[in-house]
């Protein structure tokens, strides 16, 4: 039997039509509802991680002022902050949130291809979050092993939460991966199988490309973390020695023998480095669409952008050990991983050039989403360039484990993707809610966040060059090379961090207030070309498209096409006497 793409089938199945409040809003199989469930949960747990970061900064900025924050608290906060931000906020929000919302709408599908599994994905994700949060309430508290959870330390005496907290974390990660796999298979299959007629792969918006590749990375990378979690759990519970060598813990010989701590690091970073791009690629894709739409110009070099996403995705699997240059692995690995790591800078740089060249010759509307997109470019250029320091093995050695690293990864995979998240929320808010947000508050939010975060992270690079080590509870005692001025910088950084954290209340207020009081939104307020703006209803109803699926005639970037009556031509508008065909792929018209 020949498989027929869903869009080409003559009859459609009736889709899991909701019959009650519960099936509509709680046990919902509608991708849009699931997207919002994912998004709200991710942002809620992200706020917890934000509060944790403020507590850490208070300790670092004003080390003798807060007796609430003891060393074990501090290490538990850094661990939970890191893990929540990377996995439970950014991964869940980009793929579970934006992926769920945008894939069916941008591809012209009625829903994900496996709606029931999609629903399960969210509820299992929620379970993972609850198990993670449970760590705060168990004896000994959550694990304080650092988000990298390196053994032996993660499950040995001397580390906070080494008996129960770590098990909670490992269980939560394993559950999260189950949830992600259910969602991820859905996203990939939907993109490959359920696109509407005419939506060829090379006509897809870059948002979909970014989410697609990130999901593929996730499906291939998360299993490495899954087995690591299971094996470390066994080492801790049953006394196996996958990662645990013979050692003397607190003066007592340990039960373990022959395990390899470095094996865990390899497995962790085999997941951990693609994870960076699991967060970055959706951000790359989405920001491309924001820039193009609000600059009223086609994305520059679309095909190169797609190939760059694919190249980055593939290369991201052969660079993992650049996190391990000074881990004690065979130092000859350094040659290989430095080369692969710096090669990945080429497709990444191409993306940056093309974003800026999209603005060049544009008609730039400085809307709130556009401000966030420009802010992203600046931040990402900064964070990307410092990656060239840390990726180049020799340069990494003096800088590794210092605040330079903290500054680098917060710029490149903290602030940059978060700016895109905000830009994207403002951009799609009218479609999701049917109302407009308050633009003034949006601008206030942008300016204070953009400038505030730079004030946090710029000075950190220089502390790192000085040699100030990361993951220190305090520096107050006995380090000759750290001058007093470092404490003043730390205080200033803390003030910026507290300020930026408070500013996020403006965002929350705007999003919630506008939900009820915002003016009714136009179905396509940004005059965008992609399919999600062409739905018959705003917000789109169940099934998205009314009686007939859309048909696509052009790529996603027909902005300011010469001879067209408007400065945009939606993807589902066929060429005719008045409306020219697009020139996708550089075809001459």
């Amino acid at each position, binding site marked *: 039997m020949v498989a027929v793409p869903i869009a080409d089938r003559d009859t459609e199945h009736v889709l899991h039509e909701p019959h009650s409040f519960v099936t509509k809003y709680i046990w919902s199989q509608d991708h849009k509802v699931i997207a919002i469930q994912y998004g709200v949960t991710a942002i809620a747990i992200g706020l917890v991680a934000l509060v944790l970061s403020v507590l850490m900064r208070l300790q670092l900025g004003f080390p003798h002022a807060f007796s609430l924050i003891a060393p074990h608290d501090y290490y538990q906060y850094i661990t939970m902050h890191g893990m929540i931000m990377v996995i439970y906020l950014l991964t869940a929000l980009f793929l579970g949130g934006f992926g769920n919302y945008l894939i069916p709408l941008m591809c012209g599908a009625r829903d994900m291809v496996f709606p029931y599994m999609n629903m399960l994905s969210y509820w299992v994700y929620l379970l993972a979050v609850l198990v993670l949060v449970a760590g705060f309430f168990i004896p000994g508290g959550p694990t304080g092993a650092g988000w990298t959870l390196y053994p032996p330390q993660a499950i040995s005496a001397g*580390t906070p939460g080494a008996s129960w907290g770590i098990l909670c974390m490992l269980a939560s990660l394993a559950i999260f991966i189950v949830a992600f796999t259910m969602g991820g298979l859905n996203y990939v299959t939907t993109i490959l199988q359920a696109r509407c007629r005419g939506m060829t792969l090379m006509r897809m918006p870059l948002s979909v490309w970014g989410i697609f590749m990130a999901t593929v990375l996730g499906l291939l990378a998360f299993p490495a973390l899954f087995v690591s979690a299971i094996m470390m759990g066994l080492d801790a519970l049953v006394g196996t020695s996958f990662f645990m060598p013979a050692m003397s813990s607190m*003066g007592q010989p340990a039960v373990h023998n022959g395990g*390899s701590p470095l094996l865990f690091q390899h497995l962790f970073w085999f997941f951990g480095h693609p994870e960076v791009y699991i967060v970055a690629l959706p951000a790359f894709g989405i920001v491309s669409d924001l820039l193009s739409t609000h600059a009223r110009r086609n994305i520059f070099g679309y095909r190169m952008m797609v190939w760059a996403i694919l190249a980055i995705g593939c290369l991201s699997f052969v660079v993992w050990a650049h996190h391990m240059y000074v881990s004690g692995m065979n*130092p000859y690995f350094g040659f290989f991983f430095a080369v692969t790591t710096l090669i990945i800078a080429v497709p990444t740089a191409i993306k940056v050039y093309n974003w800026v060249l999209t603005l060049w010759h544009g008609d*730039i509307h400085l809307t709130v989403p556009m401000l966030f997109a420009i802010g992203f470019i600046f931040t990402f250029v900064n964070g990307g360039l410092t990656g060239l320091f840390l990726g*180049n093995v020799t*340069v990494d050695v003096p800088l590794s484990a210092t605040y330079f690293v903290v500054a680098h990864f917060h710029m490149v995979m903290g602030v940059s993707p978060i700016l895109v998240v905000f830009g994207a929320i403002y951009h799609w808010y009218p479609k999701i809610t049917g109302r407009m947000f308050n633009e003034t508050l949006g601008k206030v939010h942008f300016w204070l966040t953009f400038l505030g975060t730079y004030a946090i992270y710029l000075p950190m690079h220089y502390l790192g060059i000085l*040699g100030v080590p990361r993951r220190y509870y305090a520096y107050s005692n006995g380090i000759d090379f750290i001058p007093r001025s470092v404490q003043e910088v730390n205080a200033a950084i803390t003030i910026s961090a507290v300020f930026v954290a408070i500013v996020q209340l403006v965002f929350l207020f705007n999003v919630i207030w506008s939900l009820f009081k915002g003016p009714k939104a136009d179905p396509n307020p940004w005059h965008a070309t992609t399919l999600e703006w062409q739905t018959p209803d705003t917000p789109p109803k169940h099934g998205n498209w009314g009686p007939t699926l859309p048909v696509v005639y052009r790529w996603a970037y027909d*902005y300011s096409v010469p001879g067209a009556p408007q400065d945009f031509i939606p993807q589902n508008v066929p060429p005719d006497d008045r409306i020219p065909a697009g020139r996708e792929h550089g075809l001459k018209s």
Partner: protein
Amino acid sequence: MAIAFAVILLVVGTVLFHLLSPWWFTPIASNWKMMDQTVNLTFWVTGVVFVAVNLFLAYAVIRYRHRKGLQAKYEPENKKLEWWLTVITALGIAALLAPGLTVWANFVTVPKNASIVEVLGQQWSWSYRFPGADGKLGTTDASLITLDNPFGMNPDDPAGKDDVLVQSQQLHLPIDVPVKMLLRSKDVNHQFAVPQFRVKMDMVPGTTTFFWFTPTRTGEFDALCEQLCGLAHFAMRGRVVVDYKAAFADWLKQQPTYAQMQARTAGDPHAGQSLYATCVACHGPQAQGNQSVNAPKLSGQASWYLARQLDDFKQGLRGAGVQDVYGKQMTAFAGTLADDQAVRNIVSYIATLADQPAESTVKGNVEHGKSLYVTCASCHGTEGQGLWSTNAPRLSGMSDWYLARQLNNFRKGVRGAHREDFHGSQMASMSQMLTDDKSVDDVVAYIRTL
């Protein structure tokens, strides 16, 4: 428009910050100048790109900001431009990689004439081992590690007999001699890092890692652990002292070999008893302590701890501070102990005395103290029993007024301020979590209940 000017200002501000920043590399003290040069080269290349891309971004926003009648240019691709940019970027990357990999080739190639030093990391302190006259380190095993064999030396390995064991946080190295640092850990991952040497490497239990360097100037340099190793990670300090060769040789001679350590005789309680006559007046016949003369209880305290404190008093590591009034009193008495054997004798006598819990004198909030004690427990044990491996003395059943005074001394820099009192300095770091006198009373009140 504002965003374009903001980007321009941020670029200018970043460059100014870079040029004016007082925070920069520590003055280098090793042969790895090339590392600094590679970092500087990378700053130049990335700095130019940072300025160029962001200024172009700002210019594009200014020039193509929306105005009435402006229409964007429809231009899906520009193959030529895209390839040019790709090639230029690839060349820039190659320009960074070439020196980077060249220096790395030096890093992985240890000079043949390099001397060998082993650094042994543990939660949360360092010790060091030199191979001795035979130039070979003896074999070790984690299962052999005990209070009397902290290095886990294999007693049957002849190569280990002449190994020089440095049970101090302070390592001496001779200037201008390349040294291969062999790194080993007893328990979890650590990292031996000295910022002025630039090089660093993790220590991984179950295996030996290494790096090499040549010290190029004399001085004292902090050694830090830079791989998260548990609760007191931030307080794990060592020091490398780079000496001229003669001074280094003198220092090395004073350090015991493994054979000498094995040959040490145990303390003699009878000999210790007569020495204890000096102590009786203050500490009491059963070493039960006497608050009215500021003498803490000694009975029940671990012998290794008492011996170390006596040594510290003798050497002026403890009790030398101007403000340490009570410590100073002890210095004079410790000075009467002629040698290490006398110290071993006296502590072995104290170990024979009956151990009665000291009376309770400090009042505080036990519940609050319990939550604070979580941190203390990681070294001193959940029962306050003390732990030799973390260099932590027993706390439970000891004089509580004395614990409170010492905690306050640590907090205020009265104790632990001497540059070579590493254990004291570690405790001073940890005590920073106690932000006021009340917290001290609370945690001591909790320790009373153990």
